[in-house]
């Protein structure tokens, strides 16, 4: 068994947990990426500057990764364009309707034992697994 296969996800996860704690400690905010993105795209409350700063931070992380760990961005995505159009639309719409994604519900919500986040995480994990199972069954192309 390749230890790195589990060690890198564990270390990456710990870094994610640390960064979510940093935002909570300094800004008093939950680190929910879909919420940050939605709030930046639909400014209504006047507190958009920190959201844009976070979005820039994600892009900066991408640039930093190309230098320190380029494997992270060696993307091999398969399938037709329509697949990514549909995926993006569903992710954008679903995360706004469901008030969160993998970060806000999956990491922050579960950490504070929010019943809503636990239910949402179980739902999107199951839906994701079911979708992949269906693609395997009917499409073949993964």
């Amino acid at each position, binding site marked *: 068994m390749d230890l790195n296969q589990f060690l890198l996800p564990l270390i990456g996860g710990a870094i994610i947990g640390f960064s979510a704690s940093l935002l909570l400690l300094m800004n008093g905010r939950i680190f929910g990426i879909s919420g940050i993105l939605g709030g930046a795209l639909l400014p209504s409350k006047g507190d958009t500057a920190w959201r844009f700063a976070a979005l820039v931070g994600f892009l900066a992380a991408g640039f930093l990764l190309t230098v320190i760990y380029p494997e992270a961005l060696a*993307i091999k995505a398969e399938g037709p364009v329509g697949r990514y159009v549909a995926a993006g639309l569903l992710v954008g719409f679903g995360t706004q309707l469901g008030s969160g994604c993998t970060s806000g519900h999956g990491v922050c919500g579960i950490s504070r034992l929010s019943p809503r986040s636990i239910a949402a995480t179980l739902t999107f994990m199951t839906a994701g697994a079911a979708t992949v199972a269906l693609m395997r069954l009917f499409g073949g192309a993964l």
Partner: protein
Amino acid sequence: MKLILSAFLSALVFGVGLGIAGMTLPTKVIGFLDVTGAWDPSLAFVMIGAIAVHSVSYRMIMRRPSPVLTPKFLIPSRRDLDAKLLLGALIFGVGWGLGGFCPGPALVASVSGHASVLIFVASMVSGIYVHAGLMKFLNAKKR
């Protein structure tokens, strides 16, 4: 200004964590969701690592009367389950399984310039506006 800097730094660290964890690779994410096929359980450790750290630090931080830079913590207080939450999570999950991207990793991976990610991010932004438009329409109808 400090709020902006700490948001930038938090996201920078978060994004690097996503990359190291393997979350920016859609093939890896789909492998994790592929429980009926060639299941790759390694990404479960991302969640284990993140929750292990954050569940402890969350409790330590919340002992403070306020955050460092703002007057109060803004934590969602709702505990009830409703149709919007579950339907939204279901739709998100289908999109996640279909493309292998969730919002954060897609933003980080967009730097690669790979067409699939750029198309995904543009569509995700569109999806957010479609949701806002639909809610506006439904709220207008209610009145």
